């Protein structure tokens, strides 16, 4: 059993690495397909061709693609994603400072949407009737609301009108945990609204199916405490699609944080993508793509492991 699990993890890890490698190659090729060269980007519109050529030469832009890619890969595996063409700073250091912002946003929004979504979904499934319809309608409304619009409304209500939360900015946890939580509150709620609705729908459907199962009916007949029936047995049975939904939410929110980062002026990866693409900063674009891929692949890996753990049939296979 342990050997099977170790093999499974090893296989999945190798596939994850292969995925990252393929994306890295694609990102590298796409960056090279972009018009212009690093020299032209770093020196600007007025630069002479000689100056541009000199920079390109220094950066190895004229080397064969194969050589360039493996040189980049060699540095990347050691944590060095190159130097920004625009300001000459380390791409790795910049992304490392931005990752906690986006991760906080995505993780916070995922947790909040999971808590709200599961609560709403379980209630709708268990109560049924009018409450189910009301929750269904409410969830439908939440799904339809664009995150940007939700954010604008929340800022107006809770920052402009009542000063409950800050309207913009991000405070790192190490500076002040309380201000960190406050600065995350509105962006996290903004991002969580749509996610909660998605998870609520998923949870409702799964729970309805779970509650029909024979073993749940048996448990009811044996006077097992209600909370245990619902949250230990039924929810565990229903959890596979819910966990998958939550993982997808995290991936989606990680990529979609650019909306919240712009609206709330937060220095995350979304802001970095926007800046690096608009300034044509190839190493920075490449770095963000690779980091985002690593995150997505890692979440998928965890999801697979969680699925295996939750489903006895899969665990035994």
């Amino acid at each position, binding site marked *: 059993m342990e050997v099977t699990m170790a093999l499974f993890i090893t296989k999945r890890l190798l596939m994850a690495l292969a995925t990252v490698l393929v994306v890295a190659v694609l990102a590298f090729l796409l960056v090279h397909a972009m018009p212009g060269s690093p020299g032209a980007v770093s020196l600007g519109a*007025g630069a002479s061709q000689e100056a541009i050529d000199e920079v390109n030469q220094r950066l190895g832009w004229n080397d064969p693609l194969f050589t360039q890619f493996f040189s980049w890969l060699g540095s990347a595996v050691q944590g060095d994603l190159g130097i920004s063409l625009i300001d000459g700073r380390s791409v790795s250091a910049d992304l490392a400072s931005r990752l906690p912002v986006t991760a906080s946003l995505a993780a916070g929004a995922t947790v909040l949407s999971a*808590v709200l979504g599961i609560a709403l979904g379980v209630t709708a499934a268990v109560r049924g009737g009018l409450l189910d319809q009301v929750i269904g309608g409410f969830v439908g409304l939440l799904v339809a609301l664009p995150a940007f619009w939700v954010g604008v409304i929340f800022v107006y209500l809770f920052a402009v009108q009542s*000063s409950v*939360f800050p309207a*913009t900015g991000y405070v790192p946890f190490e500076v002040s945990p309380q201000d960190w939580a*406050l600065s995350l509150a509105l962006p996290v709620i903004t991002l969580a609204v749509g996610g909660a609705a998605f998870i609520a729908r998923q949870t409702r459907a799964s729970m309805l199916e779970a509650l029909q199962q024979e073993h749940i009916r048996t448990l009811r007949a044996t006077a097992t405490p209600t909370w245990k029936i619902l949250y230990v047995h039924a929810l565990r049975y229903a959890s596979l699609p819910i966990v998958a939904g939550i993982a997808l939410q995290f991936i989606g929110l990680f990529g979609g944080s650019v909306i919240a980062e712009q609206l709330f*002026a937060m220095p995350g990866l979304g802001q970095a993508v926007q800046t690096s693409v608009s300034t044509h900063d190839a190493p920075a674009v490449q770095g963000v793509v690779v980091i985002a891929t690593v995150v997505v692949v890692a979440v998928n890996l965890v999801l697979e492991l969680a699925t295996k753990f939750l489903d006895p049939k899969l665990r035994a296979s």
Partner: protein
Amino acid sequence: MKLLTTTARGSAAVLTGALLVGSLAACGGGSSQAAAKADTSSLTLAIDSDSASFGFDPLRVSAAQRQFFEGLYDSLMTLQPDGSAGPGLAKEFTYNADNTVLTLTLKDGVTFADGSKLDADLVKANLDRRSDPALSAYSAVAKGGAQEITSVDVVSPTQVALTFAKPQPGFEKNLASTTGMIVGKNGVTDTSTLAATPDGSGPYTLDPSTVKGNKYVLVKNDKSPDASKYAFKKVVFSVVLDPQARANALVSGQADVAMLTSNTVDFAKSKGVGVSQIGGTVNTMISFDKTGKTAPAFGQEKVRQAIQYAINRQALVDALHKGDIPAWNALPKDSAGFTKDLETKFAYSPEKAKSLLAEAGYPNGFEFTIIAGAQTQTDLQAVQKDLAAVGITMNVKMAASTDEAFAAVATTPLGYAPLNWDNPVGVMYGAILNGFTNVQKATDDQLSAATGELAAAKDDAAVKAAASKLNTRLVESGWMIPLYEALTNQGYNTKKVAQVKFAGTNAYPLLSSYTPAS
């Protein structure tokens, strides 16, 4: 039944818990404008772009970033509250008889962040970087530039002489912007260090709590003798790209001052903040091709004039730029050259446009392409509709890259950009007559003469006469097709900051002009 009740209770508890967390967090604070006190401990400015996206070399940016870099670097001359140039690192200056040599006498006792001292060698080392094409601030003074400096010579340890390729009366005004900012010895020797670390002698230094691209924290520089002229101990430049978010930051207290767009001014005022306004930036279509190389029709003045008549500027402003001013003048309304007559002379008249097109040999109009950016697309679509009404088909193509946008000056006949006219001679020489908007190298004797006259003008009357000629000719020739003048708006928390004042017509207030509310 028990099952259902308990579940509902459980769900309600989860929701209540979530709300409680929110309420507790709310008790923790959230600063409000009402709670802010007028103090001098810090000032937060919400700005609309990342001033240091190219790092901390002030010479890599243009005059529009002066306000940010003014905190970290001193200039050879300084912008005065009335908009004139006053002493800075150069305490005195003199021109030779024919205005081809400017000699600067430097201040004593100026220390840079790296510990180096100001002297003539350092100024020369700075200005000798002008051959580096990446230094935007030096583009006009580099070889072949409109205000070319041919040599920089050390006269004595405290005196340096700038020799120009041709007479440059009034050049000192350029030294009050980023062009005149001086970088310390380490920064000049190894410019790569400026990517992350500024090396200036300014009133503030960069605090480590800075988050690149998001929040730049400047704290008082104890070594600067001029630091006392700046009221606030700490200045934070907070980059907030979204205009509504900037207004929100101001009214909710995260910012003390914010750059507002015209369409957020009413909202900000309704929340009790102060707003100072100034004109000066004219959003203008620029004829890149006056010789007809890329679109033969543009080679004719009548065609360019037809476009002037074809555009309904008032409708454009009403629909897209509420609060701004429709513009028929190339120069802003507060400039010496503003000419009211142009508003009637080139008033909206599709009929006149059609008749001019017919006279030019294009009775059925013609077709051309313009390259748009995300910011300009909607304006161009409005113009496109007006031009279509007189028979001109303007295809609006979104720029696929910055390279394509830059290349448009050579590949398309018309462009669109905001132009700030704080230094009209600099704009004319640097961008219009010789610069990037004239890659086809078109000439116009009247424009050249008026620019020369303006550069040489010694008093207000002469400035007005020359600037009026320049403005009128820019419009009549169709080199400039102005659309509207954007107001620059500085919103400020009246409980913390005194009324914001602009330095002459400069759109960016001096950092030293922000003072606490009394």
